[in-house]
């Protein structure tokens, strides 16, 4: 990971979202889909913590010598400030951070499921999978047309795409979960990737477990630092041998996890204290079959 002062090359609206492109060759060179950057907020404001964004695009070459783009939904004080940032301003950026999506080596048909601006890292992944000769199909969802992230780019990047909106303003009415079974059947998906709300991820994880489809998911958890210092963004993940679980930092051990190893009940439960591992242990999960 590097910390750089990065110039904003471009800041623009993208439907309901905002997008910022940075000149950051040292970061762009290394970045892989699923990884994120951490952006410092201005000094002397009441919102102090850095904000963290999945990377949507990186270009390692070109006139600017290496740029990267991230997308966000301006809804709090930090993202609200970022939405006002103009080209040629400089941002304090740390990246690339976190573990990226793994690519399959043997399996071919990849189904990519995303909701809202979760599509941003997933489109980056689609590009890289296609560059490795994989088949890419997509299920893309959002609450309405405005929140469907770059539908035309989604079409360009995929063999087939199912677009789902809650109000039916684009594609079919419903959620990505409604489209999932049919999409898996129609595309012969062998691997599923997902970036979405936690409740959706959980439902996809259960679907994948039931059908024994290997999957990788980018999760979101409240992150104070993003660089592994504070231990606030943890996710309960079963050890490889099933002997127990560990609260792993989403920022350094994630944000991409094998969903079969996440203890969803504990992660999403209301109990503030972690319950102990049952004496018989957890089922061991085979590692990513790539």
């Amino acid at each position, binding site marked *: 990971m590097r910390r750089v002062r990065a110039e904003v090359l471009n800041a623009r609206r993208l439907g309901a979202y905002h997008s910022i492109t940075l000149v950051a060759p040292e970061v762009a060179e290394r970045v892989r889909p699923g990884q994120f950057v951490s952006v410092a907020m201005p000094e002397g404001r009441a919102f102090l913590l850095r904000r963290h964004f999945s990377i949507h695009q990186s270009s390692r070459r070109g006139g600017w010598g290496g740029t990267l783009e991230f997308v966000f939904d301006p809804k709090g004080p930090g993202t609200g400030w970022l939405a006002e940032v103009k080209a040629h301003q400089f941002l304090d950026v740390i990246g690339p951070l976190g573990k990226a999506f793994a690519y399959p080596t043997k399996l071919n048909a990849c189904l990519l499921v995303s909701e809202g601006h979760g599509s941003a890292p997933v489109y980056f992944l689609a590009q890289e999978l296609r560059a490795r000769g994989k088949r890419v199909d997509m299920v893309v969802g959002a609450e309405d047309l405005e929140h469907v992230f770059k539908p035309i780019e989604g079409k360009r990047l995929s063999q087939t795409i199912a677009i789902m909106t809650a109000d039916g303003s684009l594609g079919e009415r419903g959620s990505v979960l409604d489209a999932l079974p049919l999409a898996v059947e129609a595309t012969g998906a062998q691997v599923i990737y997902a970036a979405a709300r936690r409740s959706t991820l959980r439902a996809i994880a259960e679907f994948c477990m039931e059908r024994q489809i290997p999957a990788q998911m980018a999760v979101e958890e409240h992150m104070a*630092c993003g660089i*592994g210092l504070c231990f606030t963004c943890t996710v309960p993940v079963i050890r490889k041998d099933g002997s127990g679980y560990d*609260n792993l930092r989403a920022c350094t051990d994630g944000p991409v996890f094998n969903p079969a190893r996440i203890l969803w009940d504990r992660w999403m439960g209301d109990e503030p*204290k972690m319950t102990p591992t049952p004496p018989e242990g957890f089922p061991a999960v085979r590692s990513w079959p790539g």
Partner: protein
Amino acid sequence: MKHSLAVELNGLRFAHPVLSASGCLATGHDVPGLVDLHKLGGVVSRSLTLAPSKGASTPRSAETPSGLLSAVGMQNPGVEAFVEQDLPRLQKAGVPVIGSVAGSGLEEFIRVASMLHRQPGVVALEVYLSSPDLERGGAPIYARLDRILEIVGAVARLSSLPVFAKLPPLVPDLVETARACVRAGAFGLTLVDAMPGLAVDAARLRPKTAIPVAGLSGPALKPLALAAVYQVARAMPDVPVMGVGGIFSGTDAVEFLLAGAWAVQVGTALLVNPAAPVEIARGVLEYLREKGIASPADLRGRLRVRGEPG
């Protein structure tokens, strides 16, 4: 004039007075490269318990105005794993380590402290008194003076290392509590620990952290921390006090030194800016040069208060 940042706390030496506060520097072996470990004045370890602790559920943090609420629930690898896996990396960097001793009761504090205090590289211990006292119904240890003294006293008796008691600013009479800690054997005090705070998500009718009452840190805490340092340092000018609470800049650190701190610790700022301790130390040096003052010790308690001899 030759300016030096080196400080000496009654025999305990640091190359400069800016240390990292407990819980804000990963565990040790996993400190990211962005933090120049060897350039820190010192490192206070994560608060260590006897057995590994998984900590609390998430969400563990919430941003509040000029502050950070966090409730990690003391996730740590346990003192044994810390000594085996984390301490070597810190030793290799040559940075002095203050072991933060935690526990749920007297015995655990004693056992953790006795595993830490003879390790090479560990120069002092800090007793973390905000953990729930499971031997006394689960209220924080600092809530009862007798328990503070029992635990601080026991750790101080078993170890020949300097022992700092870390107190939040809300014990009934902070100066008297600090005095009692020193009488019980404490070498110095770390002021202050995070304050209990609550953030509410009104839309969902829920607290924003899984453990509702979490620890408030960051600039929101700074005036409380300064007051605590000022009061305790005035009452006991010969007892080393480490100031902590919302220090983000060199000026902030200077304010703590003027109020009476012998050294400072940086926590929340490190999460925002991994170079913060180094930049803060540089800021202190610039201040010394500007004012023609030789060392941080010469700043200590130099606050000019009306009606008092300067």
